[in-house]
Structures are given as C-alpha cells and as structure tokens.
C-alpha cells in the first residue's frame, strides 16, 4: 500500500538527522515505503535519491534535519520561533524507530491520561490521575490547539525539584507534526518546547525525530537528551502494543472519554483532510 494522500505527498518530511549524516556521509531512509539514499557531498550539499528510479527528490536542511518533499510542495517547512531564541538549547533527543503508525504516536503525545501509568514517578504518579477539563480549538490556520491542560507531575523535567502542577499547551500543525509547550520549573512566563517530526516509513512504521527547545538556565544538554530518551523508551512498548497499528478513524472503533477531547478533534481533522496513510478510514 503506497501513499495517495496529496496533503502528505505535497508536504515536507524529515528523513535524516544532520548529526548522523555528518558522521556516516550516506544514510538509507524510507519514506512512504520508498527506499531513499541521503548523501552528504564533498561540498556539504545534501542530496536525496529515490532508489527505485534514481530520481532526485526536492530536499532542504532545517532545524538540523534533512527534509524531503516527494510531491510538489504546496507550503514551506513550518516556522518555529523557539528554535531561534538564543537562551534555549535547540537539540534533538534522538530519532526513534517505532513499529506503529505515526498517527498513533501523535495521539500518544497529545495524551495526559497515561502519565501516571506509563511515566510513573516522572510525568505522573498514582493516585493523581485526574485529567481536568481543558480547551481545544481549531485555529484559523487549520491547526489544533489544546490549552489550559494541567497535570500534577513528580519530576516534570531534568531541572525540576519535587512535584509541581504543570501547564501544557498542545499544538498539531500537520498530520505527522505535533508539539507541546510546557511549564519550566524556573520561569513563570516562558515555556519549554518539544516538537515531533514523524517520518512515515510505512503505514505501520515510523521514525520519531524530535527537536527540544529548552531554556538553558539550570539545564545541560546531556540531561535533556537523557530525559527525552527515558520518556520515549517508556512510550515505545505501549505504542507497539496497540492493535490495530493504524489509527482507526471510525468513531466506534475505540472508546473516547472527556480527557481525549483533543484526540477526538485530531481524528475528525484527519477524516476531514482525508488523511488515510497510517489510518483505517471510517466507512
């Protein structure tokens, strides 16, 4: 099954981390089941070839990643102001291959209810399990934003000391790109930022690339990367045990509750944009 969704084909997707490419000069990658070769030339130019037909694909470097558009780009790579703020570390927490649909990964990222059970002792702990009502909206730019999301967290970040009430804002920019803004334990008015650039390898496989934009104050990069890897390592076995692997868009396939308000809107938004790759369409 290959991808026929125009909205995905005409968009930009991360296929490699520049750090890795600098080390190996050539990398193999897969996007929508098509094998690609990513090369770093003598002149530090990056090229991406499709193995099947040898065709060069349109590519760009941004945020330390190689981006590819397999179709005709109808919009640019999204702009993330936090990545240009000098008092932040801007770093990848690592690229994680996951044997499930990238859409499942987005939904897991938008979910607070699992914190006490999957990230026990870090992002949540029993008995503090309640997901308070929060706000969700579809913006004029056709993004999904969830605000006023509060959760009690024992160790919210590598710099946190003791439990705090954390406020999150979630934002879905594109079907496979999602971010969050999260309370920084040392600043009342600034938030730490994480964005996932998910590479759809196949309908049931993905690589989760990410960019962390964390305020430097009191933080160091190794701890930050370590924390992201710890949290993601806790999510991965859950994600790989979801059946079916593709995200079902039929409202009766699974059982949403109030806490899943943002996921309900995400699934509806995917239906409306006819995103079928990585999904089981509603019939």
């Amino acid at each position: 099954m290959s991808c026929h969704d125009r909205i995905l084909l005409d968009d930009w997707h991360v296929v490699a981390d520049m750090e890795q490419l600098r080390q190996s000069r050539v990398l193999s990658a897969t996007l929508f089941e098509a094998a690609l070769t990513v090369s770093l030339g003598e002149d530090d130019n990056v090229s991406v070839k499709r193995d099947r037909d040898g065709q060069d694909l349109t590519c760009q470097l941004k945020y330390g990643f190689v981006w590819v558009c397999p179709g005709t780009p109808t919009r640019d790579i999204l702009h993330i102001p936090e990545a240009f703020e000098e008092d932040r570390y801007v770093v990848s927490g690592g690229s994680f291959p996951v044997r499930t649909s990238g859409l499942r990964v987005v939904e897991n990222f938008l979910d607070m209810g699992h914190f006490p059970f999957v990230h026990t002792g870090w992002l949540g702990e029993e008995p503090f399990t309640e997901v308070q009502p929060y706000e969700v909206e579809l913006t004029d730019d056709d993004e999904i934003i969830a605000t006023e999301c509060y959760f009690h967290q024992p160790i919210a970040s590598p710099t946190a000391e003791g439990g705090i009430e954390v406020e999150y804002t979630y934002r879905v920019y594109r079907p496979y790109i999602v971010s969050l803004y999260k309370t920084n334990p040392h600043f009342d008015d600034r938030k730490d930022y994480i964005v996932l650039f998910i590479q759809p390898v196949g309908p049931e496989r993905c690589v989760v690339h990410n960019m962390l934009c964390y305020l430097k104050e009191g933080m160091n990069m190794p701890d930050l990367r370590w924390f992201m890897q710890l949290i993601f390592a806790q999510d991965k076995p859950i994600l790989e045990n979801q059946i079916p692997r593709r995200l079902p868009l039929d409202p009766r396939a699974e059982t949403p509750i109030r806490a899943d308000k943002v996921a309900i809107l995400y699934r509806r938004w995917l239906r409306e944009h006819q995103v079928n790759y990585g999904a089981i369409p509603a019939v």
Partner: protein
Amino acid sequence: MTTDLQRNWYPIASSTDLPKRHVYQAQLLGREFAVWRADDGYVNVWENRCLHRGVRLSIGINDGRELKCQYHGWRYANRTAGCTYIPAHPADAPARTICNNTYPAQEAYGLVWAGEEATGDVPALDGFDDLTALRPIPLIAPMNMVAEALLEYKWDESCKGARNDEGSVTVTASDGTAVRVFVQPLDSNHSVMRGIYNRAVSEDDRVALLKRHSWLMQELRDRIEAQAATQDAPEPYHPVIAKVSEDLVDIPAISEDGRTADLRVTVTRKEMTAESIVSLRMEPIKGTLPTFQPGAHIDVHLQNGLVRQYSLTNGPGETDHFTIGVKREPDSRGGSVSIHDNLQQGDNLAISAPRNNFPLRRDSVHTIFVAGGIGVTPLIAMARALNAQGLSFEFHYFVQSDDHVAFKREIGEFEGALSIHTGLSPDATGAKLAEILSSPDNSRHVYICGPGPMLEATREIASEKGWSDDAVHFEYFKNTTELDDSSSFDIDLARSAMTLNVPAGKSILDVLRENGINMSSSCEQGACGTCRCGVIEGEVAHQDVYLSDTEKAEGKSIMTCVSRANSDRLILDI
C-alpha cells in the same frame, strides 16, 4: 455466518500457562486473547485489546480481582470484563456499556479451551481414565495438514492413528497407551499440537514422557513444515473486532433504562450478620451478573410488590454473586420485614442491574469513611476496592453495640484502618466526628452513609471544620423531606423539542413517562440520584437529599422524581 471453526472448542493454553496473577497471550483463528486466572480460580478469555485505545491487555496487570490496562489504568472486572474505574475521571462511574469482548472458556484435562462461539461441553476423552498433558508444539502449517499428518504419529511400531469426529487424532499402541492430539488453529497457516496421554505418571517418568513426545512431535513438525513450505500459504484470517457500543461515541452517556428488573437471581444464602441485619447472597439463575462498581445499589423487587434499594457489599472481582445487607425496619411499609420474615434461602428474586450514583474517587491521598449502622454497606464495597489497590483509608463505623456490627469478616480485611465506635450518645458521636474530621485537606475525601440525623451532623461538622463540599460525599437511605407537589409548571425538553405541563399531584418523572420518554429511576423519593437530569434554564425547587448544597445552589441539575419548579418553566437537557 457461523462455521464449525467458530462453533468448536479448541485448546488455547495449558493450565500451567496461567500461574497466579499472570496474563497469558493466546491466539485462535487469527484473533488474540488475553487469558488470566482470577484469585477465585475463574479463567477469563478476553479480546486482547483495551476498549479505550487498543492496547493489548496481555501486557496489563492481573491483581487477582481485576485486570488493569497498562496505558491509562482502566480496570476491568473478573468474569464480566466490565470497566469498573477510569482513573482520568475519578468522580465518574464508567458507563455500563464499557465492557470488553469475552469468549466462552472452559478448563479441562490440564488445558484451557475456548471458541469464538462455542457452546456445550469440550470434547469428552472416551477411554482416558487418567491423563497427562504433553508439551504443546507450535508449527507453521494449516490445521488440516497437521491433523492428517498426526495419523502417522508413532512412538512404537504398533501405533495406529484414528480421526475423531471433532477433528482431533487419537493414536493408540498395542499396550493400551494412547495419545490424543488436538490441533489449535492459531491462524490459517499456524497451528499448535496439544497432546494428552492416557495415563497418570510419576514425577520422574513424567519428565521422560514429556521429553520423548516433545522430541517425536518436533520430528513430526519438521516433516509437516517441509510439506507446508511447498504449498502457497493460505490467506490469513481477518478476525472482525466488534465495534464499541453506539452510546460511547458521544462522550456523555445517558442511560435510558427505567425502573426495570432485568435480572433473575436465587437467594443462595440468607444469614443474620448482626442484630436485626440479614445478609443475602444472590446468584444468577443463568448467565452472569452485570458489572458493578463500589458504591452501587440494586433495586430488589419483592414478592409483595414493593421495590427497595440496597447497596452491594461485594469486593472487587467478586462477580459471581451480589451480597446486600437488609436491616429490619418494623416501622416501614414492609419491605425489610418481608425480606426478614418471608424470604427463604432458595427463593428467586427479580432485581435491577447495579447503578452507581455514589461513585468512589480513587485519586485522593487518603479517604475517610464514616458509616452509621446499616449505612455501612456501600462503604464496605468502597473500602474493599481501595484496600485491594493498596490505597490509604480509614474506616469509622458507628453502631449501638458490638452485636450490631455487620459484615465482620469483610470489615476485618481493613485491619488497622478499622475503628468501631460503639454506644456513643449523639453528643459523644458529634465529638468523635469532630475529631475524625479535624484536619481538612484538599487531597482527602470523606464518604458518609448512615441515618439522616447522623449524616446531617457529619456534613455540618465537616463544613465547620472547613472541608469543601467537593470533598464530602454522602448517601442518604431515604428522603424524609415532606414533599410538596402542589405546584403546576411547564417543562421544555431542549433535545426533544417538546413542551409538557406538569400538573399538581404529578412528578416531572411521571409526565416524562406518560409522554413516552424513558428516564431511569430507582428509589423515586429523591435519595438515590438515578433520575438526575440537567437544567438549562429556570429555577428549581429542590426536594431531594441527593444533591449537595453547592449543586442545589448552582441549579444545574434536578431530581425529576421529587423536585419541581419555582419558576413557570424549566428547560431540561433531555
């Protein structure tokens, strides 16, 4: 269409695959199962998928009573597979329709058997006086090819194979030893051979026997797999996963069952548990009982036509029966007296499915239970649930005397958390309550059930001590308010676009029913909370004892069985 594949029983696990508190992942005809044994011995065979987000339940936690999903901590009850708790919404009782798919299961001959739609008994082992279950051997080949090849299975030259009606193969040697092999179709091209030997063997001999057959069957496996590899693999099965119930699609679920007595039960035990308190154990006449949650009550339809509400005292996972406690109330209209004097062990009763209008939060750091007399019953079920999860609580039980302490075995489980306060005067009770409630705290919750005056006193003391209304939960047995039904007013039904008049002498609930609107109800006297309905506009004349003062002041809900309007018109969210 149901085929033999669906109707047949197949072995899906060995009994030894289910050690205490384990969850085993099995598969039949392409469908995955989560298989787990509860502490009461019951073997559950469920769809291997949490209804919420599809996570495999085989990676969940078997706590001996319930299975807890790893992803969001949803709890599913032993036997019924109904959801008993959703941690993300601690104040809510999960909708009754959140129930996992279960499959028929039996345990026999050291094997666990299941079938998609199997009925009746598992195949009889004719001629097998004794038995030993052999090691299962999985292989990549279709079931029928495996069964065919098994006819040639041999451990000595005298062995002869014969096919049984249901597809298994019996191989018999001239010395009378025999092995019957059942083939479990994991999928269209994957099978497991599960053999049973017709003798019991001693420990040393057993190991030798298992090794020998394991070796021989692996040899057979290699031959069958080689044969299967020469053919095209059949298309894998595509098991259909049933959709969740329609009413779960939109988030708020309004149950639409009236005051019905859907269940028929037999009273299997009737015994005095304390002075003038009888406990009744009820078991289903057929099938299973629906899922209950701690704090739930049932309607009991008595032989004399009266309907009474009683709380369940069951602990989590106790799903093969319901237990209630009934106090003899000589001054009442005869419900309890009829149970005490006329109901016999062995009698059948009609009861409603359990309803939970007194849900238990499990997200508080510490929970305080305050029980007065027979009000102990719902609190027993709640404290047993917290106790099973290892959550912190204290249990205060106010009674006239030691003879009045009911359900001693159940409350004995609470050990150090239990305090029994006997023979206190109203003043002394007040002083004790003031002591219990001396330190209000947002992370603690209080649950109270008992006679009206004690309940009022507890609520008053809690409020004086600074407890917020949200942290104090209570359940009245009955509404002693003198009801006034003299007013007449209109109700607009926002969702049904109807306007109805409620005349003097009739309740909102009566009028709704007369107009074909099915509204759930239970006590019909403003105590239980079942007929609660949202109010969009209008001023409510509350006459119930279910809603808290804060909820009454907000005016967003009404108990349609007793409460009325102070304005000319109410707009209801129906």
